[in-house]
C-alpha cells in the first residue's frame, strides 16, 4: 500500500475525467461506430391523437443507403415493458404528438434522415385535448403521487382553522412545462453478437436499463450488457429507460447489424419526459404572531394517456412547517400529451415555488420578516409523520444565509429602492429535499502490489461521482484518492442503483465504503506478500440501505436573491443569489459546489426564462430548440454563492452525507419571485417572470 497521507474527507479533488472531457477523448454513447453500423432516424407522429393507418415506405427504401424501415407492422414484438413509454412500434396508436411511429435505418445518418423525409404516413385523427385547466372535467385524485407518496393527506380541519385564523393567504400559482434538455441528447448504440446484446446508452443508471431491456426483449439479464461510461447530463430525464435504448436494440435485432440512434434536439422533449405544468392553490392561516394554524396545498397537474405520473408538488408541505391542520392533495388529468416524468427535484421544485411564495405573502400580510416567519414555524418533528428529524438545519441555514447576504439591513417596504433605471429587491425562500438511499453492491480489490481497485455500476452524469467514490474508498483504505482505480458505468460491474433522487453518492458510497473498509481489515490482518490473485471484498447494502428509518431525513437550505427589474422594459436580472445548505457531510467541496450552483442556475431559469406551452391546435410543445427554450446563459448569472453548514448526522450512512444534486433548484424561483415582488410591489403568481408579465405593474 502507498504511504501517502490520505486527504481529508471533503477535499476539493478535481474530477478524474475532467481532462478527457475537455480534450474530447471521453467516449459518450454515440462515440463508437462498430463495423457495419447502421444509423437510425426516428420518425415522430405529427398528430396528437389517433392512429397510423399507413406508412408507405417505397420512396424511402429507394433512397440510396437506406436499409430498412421499421414500423408497428414489422418491428419485433416486445413483451410488455416495465414502462409503457417503451412500447414503441408495437401498435398503430398515436397517444401524443412526437410518439415514435417509424424508424429508418441506413448506412449513413444523412441517408436515414432523407429516407425519413420520403416516408408517406397516413393517419386517422381523433380529436385531442392538450390543455390543462384547473376545472378540467377529467381531473381525478390518484392513489399515489410520484415517489410513492399518498396523493392526499389530511390532518385536523383546515377549513375550520382557516376560518378562525387571524390572517389568511389564498393564492394560486402556475407554471408551464419545463424541459430537462441535458447537453447530450438521449442516444444509444446497440450490438447483438452471438445472442448477447450490448448497448452503450446515455442513461443515469445502466442497471435499470438492463432490467428494462431484459423485460422488453424477454432475455436473461446475463445476456445483456449496458454501458453508460460518460453521460452528458440528465436532470432526471435519463433516470428511467428511454426509447432510444429499446429502438436501437430492436433495430439491431431486426437487421442483424449494429445500430446507432440519437434523438435530435427537436424530438427530445416529447420522448424523454418533462416537468409537468402545475396549477397550485395554497392557503395558509396564521395567528397574529405568525404561528401557522392551517396549511392547505392543492395541486392540479396533468399526465399522458400512456402512463400516470403525478408531480408530487404538495409533498414538501408535509415536511416544511408546523401546523396542526394540514391538507395536501393532488389531482391529475390524462391528456393527449407526452408523458411527464422526473426533472431535477420533481415535486420539491414545483411545490416549493408555490409554498415559499405563499409564505412570503403571509409575511407581508402579517408585517413580519419572512425569515422570522419561517423560524417561528420550524417544527420539532416532521409535521405529517410525527417522526423526529435525523437532523434539521433549516433554521441554521436561514440565519447563516441572512447574515452572509446582509438580509437584516433590508428595508421591508416594497418598491422602495431604485438605482437608476433598476428597481431593486431582495427575497428569501427555504429549500428541502428528502434523503433517499437504495441498496447497492460494490467490490474492492487489492492487487498483489496492494493497489486498490473499486468496481461499482454507478453513473457519473457530470456530478463527479467517479471522483467522490474514489475519495470514499481512499478514506476507508487510508490511502490517497489518486491511487485508487475505479470502474463505473457498466452492467459488467457490481449492480448499483441509478443516479437520481440525489441518492447516488449515498447508495453507491455506502457499498463502496463497506467493501473498502472490509478490504482494509483484510489487509490489516494479512501477513506476508499478498496472494497472486490479490484480495477482493464485496459488499451488498440490501439490508442496511433498504431499512426504513425511524427518523425523518431531509436536507434543508435557504436561498436569498437580489433582483434588479428594469423599470422601463420589465426585464429581470438576478444580481446576487446565495444558498446555504444543511446536507450532511460534504464529500468533495469542489464537485458539491458545482452541484449546488448548477441547481441554483437552473432555478434562475425556472424563475425567469424557462417555460414551454403546448400548441392547442397541433398538440406539440411550442419550443423545440435551445434558441426558443431559454435556459439561462452566462449573462443571466451574476454573483452566485453556495455555502453549507457542517452537519454531523449519525442516522444517514457511513459517510454522513445527504444528497446535494437537486436542492439547489428548490425554492430558488420563489426567492427570486419574492425579490421581484419586493422590488416592484407586484406579486406575480405565474412563472417564468418574463418582461411581458412585469410590464402591467410598472409605472
Amino acid at each position, binding site marked *: 500500500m502507498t504511504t501517502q497521507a490520505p486527504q481529508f474527507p471533503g477535499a476539493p479533488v478535481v474530477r478524474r475525467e475532467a481532462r478527457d472531457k475537455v480534450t474530447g477523448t471521453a467516449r459518450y454513447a454515440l462515440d463508437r461506430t462498430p463495423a457495419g453500423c447502421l444509423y437510425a432516424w426516428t420518425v415522430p407522429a405529427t398528430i396528437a391523437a389517433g392512429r397510423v393507418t399507413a406508412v408507405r415506405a417505397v420512396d424511402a427504401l429507394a433512397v440510396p443507403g437506406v436499409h430498412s424501415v421499421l414500423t408497428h407492422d414489422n418491428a419485433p414484438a416486445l413483451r410488455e415493458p416495465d414502462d409503457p413509454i417503451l412500447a414503441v412500434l408495437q401498435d398503430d396508436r398515436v397517444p401524443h404528438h412526437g410518439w415514435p411511429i417509424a424508424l429508418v435505418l441506413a448506412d449513413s445518418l444523412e441517408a436515414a434522415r432523407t429516407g425519413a423525409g420520403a416516408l408517406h404516413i397516413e393517419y386517422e385523427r381523433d380529436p385531442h385535448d392538450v390543455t390543462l385547466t384547473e376545472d378540467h372535467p377529467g381531473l381525478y385524485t390518484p392513489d399515489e403521487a410520484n415517489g410513492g407518496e399518498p396523493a392526499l393527506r389530511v390532518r385536523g380541519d383546515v377549513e375550520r382553522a382557516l376560518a378562525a385564523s387571524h390572517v389568511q393567504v389564498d393564492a394560486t400559482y402556475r407554471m408551464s412545462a419545463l424541459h430537462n434538455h441535458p447537453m447530450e441528447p438521449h442516444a444509444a448504440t446497440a450490438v447483438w453478437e452471438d445472442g448477447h446484446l450490448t448497448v452503450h446508452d446515455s442513461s443515469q443508471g445502466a442497471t435499470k436499463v438492463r432490467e428494462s431491456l431484459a423485460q422488453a426483449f424477454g432475455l436473461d439479464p446475463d445476456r445483456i450488457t449496458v454501458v453508460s461510461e460518460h453521460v452528458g447530463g440528465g436532470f432526471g430525464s435519463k433516470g428511467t429507460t428511454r426509447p432510444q435504448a429499446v429502438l436501437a436494440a430492436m433495430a439491431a435485432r431486426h437487421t442483424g447489424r449494429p445500430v446507432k440512434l440519437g434523438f435530435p434536439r427537436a424530438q427530445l422533449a416529447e420522448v424523454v419526459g418533462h416537468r409537468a405544468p402545475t396549477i397550485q392553490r395554497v392557503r395558509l392561516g396564521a395567528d397574529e404572531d405568525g404561528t401557522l394554524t392551517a396549511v392547505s396545498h392543492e395541486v392540479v397537474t396533468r399526465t399522458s394517456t400512456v402512463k400516470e405520473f403525478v408531480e408530487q408538488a404538495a409533498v414538501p408541505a408535509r415536511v416544511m412547517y408546523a401546523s396542526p391542520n394540514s391538507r395536501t392533495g393532488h389531482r391529475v388529468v390524462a391528456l393527449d400529451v407526452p408523458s411527464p416524468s422526473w426533472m431535477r427535484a420533481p415535486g420539491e421544485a414545483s411545490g416549493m415555488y408555490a409554498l415559499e411564495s405563499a409564505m412570503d405573502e403571509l409575511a407581508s400580510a402579517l408585517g413580519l420578516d419572512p425569515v422570522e416567519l419561517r423560524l417561528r414555524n420550524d417544527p420539532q418533528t416532521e409535521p405529517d409523520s410525527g417522526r423526529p428529524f435525523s437532523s434539521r438545519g433549516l433554521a441554521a441555514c436561514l440565519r447563516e444565509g441572512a447574515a452572509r447576504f446582509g438580509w437584516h439591513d433590508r428595508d421591508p417596504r416594497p418598491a422602495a429602492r431604485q438605482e437608476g*433605471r433598476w428597481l431593486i429587491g431582495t427575497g428569501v425562500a427555504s429549500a428541502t429535499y428528502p434523503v433517499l438511499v437504495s441498496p447497492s453492491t460494490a467490490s474492492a480489490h487489492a492487487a498483489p502490489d496492494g493497489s486498490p481497485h473499486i468496481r461499482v455500476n454507478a453513473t457519473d452524469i457530470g456530478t463527479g461521482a467517479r471522483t467522490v467514490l474514489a475519495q470514499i474508498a481512499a478514506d476507508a483504505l487510508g490511502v490517497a484518492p489518486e491511487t485508487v482505480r475505479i470502474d463505473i458505468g457498466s452492467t459488467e460491474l457490481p449492480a448499483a442503483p441509478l443516479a437520481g433522487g440525489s441518492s447516488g453518492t449515498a447508495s453507491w458510497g455506502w457499498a463502496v465504503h463497506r467493501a473498502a473498509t472490509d478490504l482494509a481489515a483484510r489487509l490489516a490482518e494479512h501477513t506476508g506478500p499478498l496472494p497472486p490473485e490479490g484480495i477482493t471484498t464485496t459488499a451488498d447494502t440490501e439490508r442496511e440501505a433498504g431499512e426504513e428509518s425511524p427518523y425523518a431525513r431531509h436536507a434543508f437550505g435557504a436561498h436569498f436573491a437580489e433582483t434588479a427589474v428594469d423599470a422601463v422594459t420589465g426585464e429581470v436580472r438576478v444580481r446576487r443569489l446565495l444558498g446555504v445548505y444543511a446536507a450532511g457531510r460534504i464529500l468533495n467541496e469542489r464537485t458539491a459546489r458545482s452541484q449546488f450552483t448548477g441547481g441554483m442556475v437552473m432555478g434562475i431559469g425556472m424563475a425567469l426564462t424557462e417555460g414551454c406551452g403546448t400548441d392547442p391546435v397541433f398538440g406539440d410543445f411550442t419550443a*423545440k430548440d435551445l434558441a426558443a427554450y431559454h435556459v439561462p446563459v452566462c449573462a443571466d448569472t451574476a454573483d452566485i454563492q453556495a455555502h453549507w453548514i457542517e452537519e454531523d448526522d449519525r442516522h444517514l450512512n457511513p459517510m454522513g452525507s445527504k444528497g446535494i444534486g437537486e436542492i439547489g433548484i428548490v425554492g430558488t424561483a420563489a426567492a427570486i419571485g419574492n425579490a421581484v415582488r419586493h422590488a416592484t410591489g407586484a406579486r406575480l403568481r405565474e412563472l417564468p417572470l418574463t418582461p*411581458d408579465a412585469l410590464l402591467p405593474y410598472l409605472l
Partner: protein
Amino acid sequence: MKPFGYVRPASTDEAVRLRAADPAARFLGGGTNLVDLMKLGVETPGALIDIAGLPLDRVARTAEGGLSIGATVRNSDLAAHPDVTGGYPALSQALLAGASGQLRNAATTGGNLLQRTRCRYFQDVSKPCNKRVPGSGCPAYEGSNRDLAILGYSPECVATNPSDMAVALAALDATVVLVGPEGERTVPVAEFHRLPGENPDQDTVIRPGELITEVVLPPPAPGAASRYRKARDRASYAFALVSVAATLRVADGRVEHATLAFGGVAPRPWRARRAEAELRDAPATPAAFQHAVIAELAEARPLSDNAFKVDLALRLALDVLGELAERRPAPTA
C-alpha cells in the same frame, strides 16, 4: 438530407453568374441561419455558392465621409470597428445585442440582412406556413404569436424580421448595394425587406441572382447621438421582443434631427416615419416624444398574445429618446 453542390467563386461576377444560372442555388455567408434551416429541412438548396473568399470583407470610409461595409464582414469585427463604435454607436450596440459571441464571429453583414424569421411555424416543416409553402396557411395568426408582429403584417403572415443589425442600419439611413445580372443598384435598408401582403414567401426586394456586395452608411449626422436598445427574454442569446434604434440632435430645446426604427414588431425593421415627422422641430420634451411615438404606434394591431409589444415599444422608444436628448449614458445592469 438532400445532397447539394458547393462552389467557391473567384469573383463577384462569377458568383452572380453562378446564381443566375441556378435558381436552386443559395449564397452562403457565415451559414449561421442558412445551415440551420437546411438542418430543419426548411431550405433545400441545390447548391451553395460560398462567397466567404470574395474580397467583400472590408470596412472603408467612402468619399462622402460615410462607411462602406463589405457583405462578408463578420458581425463581431464590424461591432468592434473604430469607425463604427466612433461614428455609429447604435450599429455597434445592435450587433453586440444579437445572437452570441460564437455566432457573431461567424455571421456576416449580408447574411444578417437575409436571415429569415424565427416564427416557429416557419421553422417546423410538419406545419403549414405561407412563407415556406405559399398558400398552405398561417397557423400563427391565431396560434402561438407572442413573439410575432404588431405592425405591417397581413393575415397571410405575421412573422417578424429577427435582425438587430438591420434595425440600426435602417435608423442610420444605410443603403444596400446589390449586384445582379443586370448590374448594380442600391436600396435603402429600410425598404430592403418587404411587407408580406399576399406574397410572404418574398422576404426582400432582392431580385433573382442578385448578391449583396456592401452596405453603405452615410456620414454620421453632425452632432447627432445614436443608440440601440433591445428588450428580450434572457440577458443574451435571445431575439428582440422589441428593440429601438434612434438618432437625435437637439438644439435650443428643439429636435433638429431624429430617426427612429423598431425591431421585433414587424416583418421588416420598422422605420417610424410618422414619429419622425412629428418629432421634427418639436420641443425635445417627454410629452412631445410621447405624442410622436404614439402617433406611430396608433396603427399597431396586436395579435392574441402580443399586445404587450405596443406598450414595450412605446416605453423603450421614450426611454431611448429621453437618454439621447439629455445625453445620458446607456444603462448598465
